[in-house]
């Protein structure tokens, strides 16, 4: 059964339902391949034996009405999983075993999914290359020593390498869409309030959203259907009527108005990305959509505003790591000394940097100049989108200003690393849904993505537009299994 790993998620679901293959066969196939792929360092924690047992239980008493019947999935290690170690890529949580399940992973379990492991990520999801993880760099299966993007880098790597048929990540400023773009896969950040944040290790609470990462748009619709739910354990969860994303998926985009923001044509963007963008526009026009130039005048201020809002929220969220109730503790001469040493030794450099930025912008005398100012800019950015959506149904942009870069290339310059998220961050600030789909390659053969941004709670629309582009592009990932001897 060596070809199981080549099947799409929705095909695996169909075949299990038709009893052509068993959950055990599928689970074993992905575990076998994961075991041969340690060089990628995609996993932080393996749950293989337990998963095989769960698969056996499923086969003995199958429920084919589930959306993920006996399907093995590895997930980002930012989701708390009951009795399975959850580290958030940090030393400070190296030995943390949650006593509860995040709502998103609970939804997966309730639909018959089986967790085969926890995937590497940047420490507390702070990073764009997976290089801030305490558990080491992750390799991009596209090419050796290439970053898989971040912060959901273990997720994108495992997905592209077919160690898991689909996965979930979290996206605070691009952490699902950028790694998807870097690995030739699909990633969707839902509207803020769609997926519960309960049990997700918090980074920036007003921006964080969980979302699916998949091989194709159809799988993405299926996964979104599973994980999106109203949850009274998350006070910002929104109680709206969720769509039947998979059933209603269709490629008909006739009459749809798609906006092209001129501010996304940034200096120094490779020609290939501009060409890819034009290719996307052409496909939309050929499929009966209309391309309309739009204006998002405050785009350039999104990233600076983000680097105030996100660290401010992070500094507050990460105050809980004090070495008392859980996590790493360092010895100190007194309580304060213990706190300071614990946090100094337990957090990595990028996390410390962001806590300190956040602490500074919230500190007495600076709050108005930085934090309040950033929240006002956030309003301007949201207004830009509101204005644009009076004229268009969705917006098309590139996902990232470049393709994947080499490991180590940007680690010494935080600002150049931050610039990676220039096309994704505004969407989090405005709370909108957006999907990245693979759309081409650069001259080195590295994947490039296009991003479709929607109105709030209009996930079906962006899925349909992405589906229509996907059908015409026929993207193929060039992966030669270089990491397997």
């Amino acid at each position: 059964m060596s070809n199981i790993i080549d099947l799409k998620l929705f095909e695996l679901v169909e075949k299990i339902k038709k009893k052509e293959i068993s959950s055990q066969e599928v689970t074993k196939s992905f575990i076998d391949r994961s075991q041969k792929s340690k060089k990628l360092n995609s996993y932080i924690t393996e749950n293989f034996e337990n998963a095989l047992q769960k698969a056996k239980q499923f086969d003995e008493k199958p429920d084919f009405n589930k959306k993920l019947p006996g399907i093995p999935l590895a997930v980002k290690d930012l989701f708390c999983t009951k009795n399975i170690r959850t580290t958030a890529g940090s030393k400070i949580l190296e030995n943390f075993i949650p006593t509860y399940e995040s709502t998103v992973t609970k939804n997966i379990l309730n639909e018959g999914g089986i967790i085969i492991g926890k995937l590497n990520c940047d420490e507390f999801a702070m990073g764009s290359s997976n290089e801030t993880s305490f558990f080491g760099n992750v390799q991009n299966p596209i090419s050796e020593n290439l970053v898989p993007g971040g912060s959901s880098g273990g997720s994108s790597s495992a997905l592209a390498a077919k160690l898991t048929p689909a996965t979930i990540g979290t996206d605070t400023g691009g952490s699902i869409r950028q790694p998807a773009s870097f690995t030739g896969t699909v990633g969707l950040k839902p509207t803020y309030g769609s997926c519960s944040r309960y049990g997700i290790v918090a980074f920036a609470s007003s921006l964080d959203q969980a979302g699916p990462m998949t091989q194709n748009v159809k799988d993405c619709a299926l996964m979104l259907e599973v994980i999106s739910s109203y949850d009274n354990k998350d006070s910002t969860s929104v109680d709206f009527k969720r769509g039947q994303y998979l059933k209603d998926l269709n490629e008909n985009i006739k009459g749809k108005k798609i906006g092209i923001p001129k501010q996304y044509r940034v200096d120094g963007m490779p020609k290939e990305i501009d060409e890819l963008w034009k290719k996307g526009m052409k496909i939309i026009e050929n499929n009966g959509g209309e391309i309309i130039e739009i204006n998002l005048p405050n785009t350039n201020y999104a990233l600076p505003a983000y680097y105030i809002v996100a660290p401010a929220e992070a500094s507050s969220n990460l105050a809980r790591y004090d070495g008392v109730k859980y996590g790493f503790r360092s010895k100190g001469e007194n309580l304060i000394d213990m706190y300071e040493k614990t946090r100094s030794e337990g957090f990595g450099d990028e996390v410390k940097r962001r806590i300190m930025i956040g602490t500074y912008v919230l500190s007495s005398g600076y709050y108005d100049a930085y934090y309040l100012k950033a929240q006002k800019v956030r309003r301007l950015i949201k207004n830009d989108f509101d204005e644009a959506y009076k004229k268009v149904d969705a917006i098309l942009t590139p996902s990232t200003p470049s393709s994947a870069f080499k490991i180590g290339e940007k680690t010494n310059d935080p600002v150049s690393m931050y610039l990676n998220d220039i096309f994704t961050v505004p969407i989090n600030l405005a709370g909108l849904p957006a999907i990245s789909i693979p759309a081409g390659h650069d001259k080195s053969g590295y994947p490039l993505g296009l991003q479709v941004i929607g109105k709030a709670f209009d996930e079906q629309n962006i899925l349909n537009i992405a589906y229509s582009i996907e059908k015409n592009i026929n993207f193929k990932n060039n992966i030669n299994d270089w990491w397997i001897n």
Partner: protein
Amino acid sequence: MTIDLKTVKHISKLSRISIDDNKAKKLSDDLNSIFKFIEKLEELDTEKIEPLTSIAETNLKLRKDEIESKNIREDILKNSPEDNKDFFVVPKVVE
């Protein structure tokens, strides 16, 4: 505005993160380049703009405050770096 070593030390104190002197210099350089980037916001006139504090901007829903997890003290304490079976233990705070 520049973030000098004294400011770095002050923020590190507020953040409860100890920083040794040789790291403080590098951190000050990093923070300065980040704040230079952030200061682009000064170009914008936001005098009359309402801050956006939450994207949801709806009234928070209320629910009953009911206990759902019971008898998990042992499990919770298992994650504690130091405990005496009933309590979390910290360095002595009262003489």
